[in-house]
C-alpha cells in the first residue's frame, strides 16, 4: 500500500509544482496516474521513490515513511524510471546482479526469473553485452526484469510502456495485472489513456501539480458527464 499525505514540493521557493496532494493506493489494484505533460507525474513518482525530497507531507510505503525510514521503505518497492538510463558500462547481467545483491536475492531465484523473463522479453542473448549497446526498449526491458527479480510488493513504474515493442508491452501489462491480482500494488504513470482505461482499477488525474480526480474510470466519466472515452473525460476534466 502506498499512502501519499499532504505532499507539496516546489523547486523554486513559492512556486509549487506539487500542491498538497493526497491519495492512497490500496493493495490488490493497478493504479494509474495520468495528466498532461509537466503536470507533476514524474515529480510525484520521484518523491515516492525517495529521489526527490518533499517540502511538506509524508509518503508511506506499506506503513514505512520514505522520509523517516527510507531504507525500509525502499526495500518495499521496485522502480522503473521514465528514462531507462542505467549504468552503461556494466553488462546487462552485471546490472541484474547489482540489483540482486542490493535486494539480497538468492542466486537460484535470480537465475529462475532472469531466464524466464529475459527469454520472454527477447534480450536473453544480449545479457553479457554492455548496456551501452542496448536500444531504448532493451534498457527498459532490463529495468523491468530487475524489478521483477526482487519481486517487491509495490511496483512503481514511470511511463513503463514507452519504447517497448508490442509483445513486451502486452507481456508487461499481463504481469502488472497478475501482480495486483496476487494482492500487491502496481502504481504507474502513463500518457496513453487507452492503457489506463484497459488495465487500471483506479486512476488519479494530476493537473498543474494538483490531484483533480481519484477514482475508477467509470467514476471519472460520470463526473465529467461524458459517456464515451476516457480521452474525452480527461480533456473535459483538465479543461483542455
Amino acid at each position, binding site marked *: 500500500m502506498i499512502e501519499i499525505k499532504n505532499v507539496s514540493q516546489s523547486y523554486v521557493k513559492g512556486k509549487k509544482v506539487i500542491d498538497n496532494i493526497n491519495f492512497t493506493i490500496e493493495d490488490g489494484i493497478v493504479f494509474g496516474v495520468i495528466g498532461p505533460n509537466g503536470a507533476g507525474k514524474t515529480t510525484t513518482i520521484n518523491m515516492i521513490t525517495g529521489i526527490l525530497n518533499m517540502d511538506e507531507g509524508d509518503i508511506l510505503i506499506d506503513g514505512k515513511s520514505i522520509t523517516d525510514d527510507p531504507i525500509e521503505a*525502499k526495500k518495499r518497492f521496485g522502480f522503473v524510471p521514465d528514462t531507462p538510463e542505467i549504468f552503461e558500462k556494466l553488462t546487462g547481467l552485471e546490472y541484474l546482479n547489482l540489483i540482486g*545483491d542490493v535486494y539480497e536475492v538468492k542466486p537460484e531465484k535470480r537465475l529462475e526469473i532472469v531466464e524466464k523473463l529475459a527469454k520472454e522479453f527477447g534480450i536473453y542473448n544480449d545479457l553479457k553485452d554492455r548496456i551501452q549497446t542496448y536500444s531504448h526498449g532493451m534498457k527498459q526491458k532490463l529495468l523491468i526484469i530487475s524489478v521483477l527479480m526482487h519481486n517487491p510488493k509495490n511496483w512503481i513504474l514511470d511511463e513503463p510502456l514507452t519504447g517497448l515493442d508490442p509483445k513486451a508491452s502486452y507481456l508487461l501489462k499481463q504481469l502488472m495485472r497478475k501482480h495486483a491480482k496476487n494482492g500487491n500494488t502496481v502504481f504507474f504513470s502513463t500518457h496513453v489513456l487507452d492503457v489506463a482505461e484497459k488495465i487500471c482499477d483506479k486512476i488519479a488525474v494530476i493537473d498543474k501539480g494538483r490531484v483533480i480526480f481519484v477514482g475508477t474510470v467509470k467514476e471519472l466519466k460520470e463526473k465529467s458527464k461524458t459517456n464515451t472515452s476516457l480521452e474525452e473525460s480527461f480533456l473535459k476534466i483538465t479543461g483542455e
Partner: protein
Amino acid sequence: MKTLTSVILKNSKRQELTSGSKILTVLAFLIVSGFLAIIMIVFSVIATKRLGEIGQSYAFVNMLLLMNFIIVFSESIFHALNTLYFSKDLNTFLRLPIKPKDLVHAKMVDMIISQYEMEALMLAIPAITYGVITQVSGLFYLYLLIILLVLPIIPISITTLIIAIIMRFTNFIKNKSKVMYITIILAILLLGVVLGNFTGGETEEFSVSTFERVILQANGLSREISERFVLIKPIMNTLLNYNNVIGLQNILVYVVETIVVFIAIRYIISTIYLKGAIGTIVNGQKDRKVMEKLTVKDFKKKLASKTYILKELKVMFRTPIFFIQCILMPLIYPAVTMAAVIGILNFAQKININIMETLMVNIRSSVGYATFLAIGQGFYMLNFSSIISVSKEGRSAILLKSFPIDLAKQFKYKTLIGVVVNIFPAIIITIAYYLCIKSIYLAVTLFLGLLLLNIFGEKCKLLVDLKNPQIKWETEYTMMKQNTNVMYELFYTIIVIMIMGLLGLIAGTTLYASILLLVVLIFANVMINKHITKKKSQIFAKLY
C-alpha cells in the same frame, strides 16, 4: 560550413547552470583564474630574471612554446577521438546532407578554438610577462598574438589525422571502450614516431658538457631547444628575432605551413571519416549471437557494499578518460615528479650546485613538515575520481537514490577509489620525507596526516559534486573537460595549502607541528563525517 561550425561550437559549450550556481561558478572561476594568473606571473618573473642573469632569458619563451605544443598534442588525442567519433551529435549530423569535409572542418575548428583558453593562461600571460621584463616592442606582442592563434592547428591536425586513420581500421570492434583504449595507445605510439622524426635527429645528447657549452653563448640554450624541435622552430625563431626580418620570414613560413597542413589533412580525413564514424555508431549496436546458457554460477551473491564498489571500479576502468584522469595520472604524476626532483638534484650536484644543503634547513622545520603535507594535497588535487564520482554516472546516478542503501554509506563507497589511489603519493612523500629527516616518528605522523587529509579531501570533493551534479553530459570526455566543479579542487587546494602553512608557522617546532596538524585533521574528519551522516538527505537533494 560557417553555420555548421557555429552550431558545433555552441553545442560544445559548458552545461547550463542554475542562476545560483552560475554566480558561484563564475566567482570560483575568477578566483581560480586570478590565482593561476598570479602564479604564472610570479613564476615567469623569476624564470626570466634567473635565466637573464646567465644571458639565457629567451630560453623561457622557447620552453613555453614547447610546453604548449606538447600539451595541445597530448590533449588532442582525447579531444579528436571524442569530438570526431564518440560525440552524440553525430547521430544527428550523419543523417543530414552535410559534406564530410564541412563536418570535419567544423569539428577541427571547434577543437582548435577550445585550446585558446589554455593558451591564454599557459602561453599568453607568461610570454607577456617576459615581454614586459625584457622591454620588447609592440611587434613582439603582434607576433605573439598570431602564434597564439595558429599554434594549436598543426598538433591538432596531425593527431586528428592519426586518430582518423586508426579509427578507419578499428571501428569494427563492438566494444567502444576497447576501441578507445586501442586508439589511444596506437595514437600515442604513432605520435611518438611522428614527433621523433620531427625532432633534430642529428643533435647530440644533452649532457653536462653540452649544457656548459650552450650556457656560455647568449641565448644559446634557446637555440639548442629550437634545434631539437624543428616542428616549431619557425615560431621559436619568430619571437627571438621579432625586431628584424628573420622574425617576419619565420612567422610567414609557419603560417603558410599551418594553412597547408590544415587543408591537406582536412582533405585526407574527409575521405576516410564517414566510414570510421558510421562504423563506430553502427558497431555500438549489436551483432546477433547466441549466448551460452546462464547458470547459477553467473549469479554469485555478494555483499551490497562490495557489489556497489565493484560497479564504481568497472565504470572507472571501462571508460578510458576516467581511467586515465582518475587512476593512471594520479599515479604517474607523483612518480614522475619524484624522478624529476632526483634528476634535478643529481644534475645540480654534477654542476656543483648543492641545492639539498639549502633545502635541508627548511625541510627540518615545522613549515617544512607542513609543506610536505601541502605537497600531498597538491597531488591529491590531480585526482578527479571523487569530484566526478556522481557526475560520471550520468543520469543513471539518480537511480542510486532509489536503492535501499543508506546514502551516507553510498557516499563513503563513492570516495573509496579516490582515497585508495591517493595512498600512492602519500607513500612516496612519506619515503622522501623519511630519507630527508630520518625520523620514524615524524614520518609515521606525516603519513597519518596525509591519510587524514586524503580522506577529508575526497569527501569535500564529493560534496562539491553532489552540490552541483553535472549528470547531463554528451560524452565522458566533455563531462571531464567542461566540468566546472574541477575548479573547486584548485580553490580547495589553495585554502588547504594556506592553512597548512599557517599551522606550520604557528607550531614553531616540527614536533608541535606534527601534533597540531594531526589534531586539526582528526577534528576536520570528525566534523565532516558528522555532517554527512546528519545531512545526507540534503546533501543528495540536488541529484534528481
